[in-house]
């Protein structure tokens, strides 16, 4: 018995957005270890990456700018890829504040990053995904059913859940479509969002555990999937049974 994703990502052409920190960074590290052919996209300049960032193609792009789709098409051509096996849309932002403290620009910015970017990038890369019979993975949130502290963020993640369900049906048998809803994770996102989880933070998943559980769920292909402590415990149990890998 082996872990289901042992060779799943080896040699696969994979794009990860939001790869310069948090879960995205943990994902590219693990995918690199598993032998994936990676293109990592992040908001940070390459010079600001952690010193141990894997030796893979990294591009600094702001996905909210709206022209990321065509830019990725060019990068794929420059890389000599004739198809794309997997794209994981991790990039996301959010603010913890009442809606009256939002304005049109902040709302439009959250919608652009969390919702429009994954939709437009997927639209631009659809032919590449189709050629490789690839898969697209959207990342929602435990908040996708509603959260009174984060109404705009929750709305964008709910939108993505609705989008993924419709597209999964449209692309059935051609391109895999999946949405994962990670539970609260120990990343800098909560600080950037102005949210202090207090002592609850101790219960949050580590970014490494969340990323490992997500890769397992991506290998299995089911949707929607929650990535919480249950998923991590199941993953650990399978690894123990598989011989401590």
């Amino acid at each position, binding site marked *: 018995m082996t872990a289901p994703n042992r060779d799943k990502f080896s040699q696969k052409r994979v794009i990860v957005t939001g790869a310069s920190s948090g879960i995205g960074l943990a994902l590219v590290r693990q995918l690199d270890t598993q032998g994936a052919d990676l293109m990592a996209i992040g908001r940070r300049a390459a010079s600001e990456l952690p010193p141990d960032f894997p030796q893979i193609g990294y591009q600094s792009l702001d996905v909210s700018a709206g022209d990321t789709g065509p830019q990725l098409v060019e990068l794929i051509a420059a890389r000599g890829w004739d198809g794309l096996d997997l794209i994981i849309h991790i990039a996301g932002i959010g603010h913890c504040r009442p809606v009256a403290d939002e304005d049109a*620009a902040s*709302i439009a910015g959250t919608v652009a990053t969390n919702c429009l970017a994954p*939709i437009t990038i997927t639209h631009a890369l659809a032919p590449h995904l189709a050629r490789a019979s690839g898969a697209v993975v959207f990342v929602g949130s435990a908040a996708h059913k509603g959260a009174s502290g984060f109404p705009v963020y929750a709305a964008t*993640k709910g939108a993505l859940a609705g*989008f993924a369900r419709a597209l999964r049906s449209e692309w059935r048998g051609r391109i895999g479509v999946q949405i994962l809803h990670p539970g609260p994770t120990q990343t800098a996102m909560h600080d950037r969002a102005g949210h202090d989880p207090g002592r609850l933070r101790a219960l949050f998943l580590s970014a490494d555990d969340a990323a490992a559980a997500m890769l397992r769920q991506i290998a299995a292909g089911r949707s929607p999937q929650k990535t919480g402590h249950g998923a991590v415990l199941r993953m650990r149990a399978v690894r123990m049974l598989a011989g401590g890998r």
Partner: protein
Amino acid sequence: MRALVTGAAAGLGRALGEAVLESGGSLVALDRDEAGLAALGYGVNVLAADLADTAALDGLGDDLAGRGPYDLVVMNAGINATGPFEAVPIAKQGAVIAINLTAPMALTAALLRRDAISPGGALVFVSSLSRFLSYPGAASYVASKHGIAVFAKSLRRPLAKQRIRVLTVLPGALDTGHAERHAPPGPGRKRRMAPDAAAKAILAAASRRSGEFVPGAGPRALAALARLAPGVATAVMRRVIFKKLNAAD
């Protein structure tokens, strides 16, 4: 009662505005269709604006707040873009999300900032039955309608403290120009609900409760079935809508 209705020049919005006027209320009507607004008649406070213009939303919200305060606000304006996801131009899909999701969130923020919704009043968002059924062939539309329903749900508790009810309406197919433009060709028309019947049911629901509301017994039964078996509901929608949309192209 003073009401604000967006997308008030046609379809469900027009029916909602007429129902407000019939019940003796006063109406502020927003739409991008100036001629349609003019046809609403004397006594309606009209404002022509395009909700796709995101940069103008703060100013528009302030303008609307100045015409309040309101006992009823209905975020109804919406567009659709149907067809296989990869075949519908991305600019069109971006406009769907801007008008159906970004605009009602930004206008809500502006109205709440200016205390333009009276305590005891209602804030209503028009979502869609596709929240439960899904809607292959309109993925960005589902995104926008799902998103606005989640936004509404997130506001319910904080606004209850200000004594403002938040109602999400999930209509099925209505006998409007919208359905005429986006439903696959076929004999479905007689099964669609009349917009004035839907409007009356929505006003009645908004006057007494928060939560999610599906107008009509048939759509309500569909919603219940779809919640029990979402996979089956999506598969049926794929068969009755997506495949026909593809065949019609």
